[in-house]
């Protein structure tokens, strides 16, 4: 017991010094468990590959250049979609947020179209644009757009009116109020919206690549499904999970925290 406690206190000390350790160590027992189950032969190997098989297929696919290529395709699609979604979404959100009438008219429409959901658009998009990049980009832009717009509206409305009024009465032009009051005030919400939108967009991308894709991680997984190759499916899942974990925990969450903190400073 004392050994366990000692190990635990050493572990907490270590994670306090390097927080990255805490994100990695919990996966070690999981890997061991996975290996044990795969080795025990409870499930047939073809249905339930072990970590070693997956690692081997990772090396093979990377060596052949398939995995890096597909990964690049998927990321490029996601980034394009996210960029277009933001370019449309943020101005639209600010417009809707600043005008009461625009809000009244647009809000139900926004909620309804968000509720339809990205993937339900797929069949009609296939009729309109066929199997291809336009369809995929449309779906991702659509998925990213709504959370960004809805959160931007919320953010703009959360900025106290008095702040804008104060800036105006001190002689700021409308453009300056927008740039120096409304936009920074709404920024934490915009980032939250982007984070949610990317979360949904990422999933939508996988679904779209499965159904219409000719490349990408989703296609890799679904193609492996067709061939009955569980190893590659599991590999695809791990790559997806890791990638999104890295993007979310190391890029998006810190940005969200930083903008929140900054805004917190501004109000106090």
């Amino acid at each position: 017991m004392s050994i366990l406690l000692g190990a635990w206190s050493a572990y907490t000390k270590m994670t306090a010094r390097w927080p990255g350790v805490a994100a990695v160590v919990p996966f070690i027992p999981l890997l061991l468990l996975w290996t044990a189950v795969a080795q025990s032969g409870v499930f047939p190997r073809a249905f339930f590959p072990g970590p070693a098989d997956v690692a081997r297929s990772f090396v093979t696919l990377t060596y052949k250049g398939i995995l890096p290529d597909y990964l690049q395709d998927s990321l490029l699609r996601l980034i394009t979609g996210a960029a277009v979604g933001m370019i449309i979404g943020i101005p639209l959100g600010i417009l809707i947020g600043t005008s009461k009438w625009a809000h009244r008219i647009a809000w139900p429409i926004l909620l309804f179209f968000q509720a339809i959901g990205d993937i339900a658009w797929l069949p009609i998009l296939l009729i309109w644009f066929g199997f291809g990049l336009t369809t995929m980009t449309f779906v991702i832009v659509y998925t990213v757009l709504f959370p960004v717009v809805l959160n931007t509206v919320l953010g703009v409305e959360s900025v106290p009116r008095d702040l804008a009024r104060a800036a105006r009465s001190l002689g700021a032009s409308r453009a300056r109020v927008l740039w120096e009051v409304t936009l920074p005030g709404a920024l934490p919400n915009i980032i939250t919206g982007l984070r949610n939108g990317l979360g949904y967009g990422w999933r939508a991308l996988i679904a779209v690549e499965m159904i219409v894709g000719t490349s990408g991680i989703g296609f890799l997984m679904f193609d492996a499904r067709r061939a009955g190759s569980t190893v590659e499916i599991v590999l695809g899942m791990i790559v997806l999970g890791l990638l999104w974990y890295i993007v979310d925990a190391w890029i998006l969450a810190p940005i969200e925290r930083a903008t929140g903190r900054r805004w917190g400073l501004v109000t106090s």
Partner: protein
Amino acid sequence: MNGNPADRNAQAAVPLNAGLGGRPRWLTRGLASLAGAAMFVAPLMALLLIWAIVVPLFGIDQRVFPSVAAVGAAAMESIRDGTLIRHIGASLLRVGLGTLIGVVTAVPLGIAMGVSPAVSTFLTPLFRFFSVLAGIAWIPIATLWFGYGFGAIIFVIFNAVFFVVTYNTLLGVSTIPLALRNAAASLGAGRWALLTEVLLPGALPNIVTGIRTGLGFAWRGLIAAEMIATNVGLGYMLFVARDFYRTEVIILGMIVIGALWLLIDRLLLVPLERSTIERWGMVRRA
């Protein structure tokens, strides 16, 4: 009731409780929410009107975008022969069952793990990783394990709900101040009382938020899974209509999907979330 003078007196005596204008409070509130609903529906009706005008005006091909009448006819036809109800029923059953299994297993597990700070800090990254993967990414392996059909779809939905709800429950329990738990324990609360009166209510807002997020992913996962792996359900209805270029059926399906989710979210999940958060807010203030 108005004929009785005593009653009228009683009404005049308590104008504050009766609300402004002497109307009972439930009526005022009902009228207000009715007006709110009308305000909500009006822009959608306007959109419908634009659709009804634009499609015939520009002579848009039925195969590109259907007219309102065509979608209406498709709706009537599919209601009459029962296919629409069958598809909706299948989809709702899957979401309901998958969510139920997910929540029933996730909440106890989340609480059990959250009780110990050591266990919860250790396991949080794991559950974060799996909640990232939740839903659609499991479709290929689910169809391989369970075959195309009911089992695979239930698994995908269960998965989307389970990890998100467990992660949120874990988070909820671990944010309850330790002082509250200690206070309850030192006042003589047993394990059961601690669970039902401190841990569960304290984690409830997070649990409900988790259910809402998870169900959002599950709904999308359901549509995707139905397109790929089944022969009944709303996603399947859309995807088959595509094969025959029946855009009116596709649009009908999209409207049904949007309306259903809006109803589930606004009438069930949002009020649930709001009421639990309000309640917990009150508990904390007291």
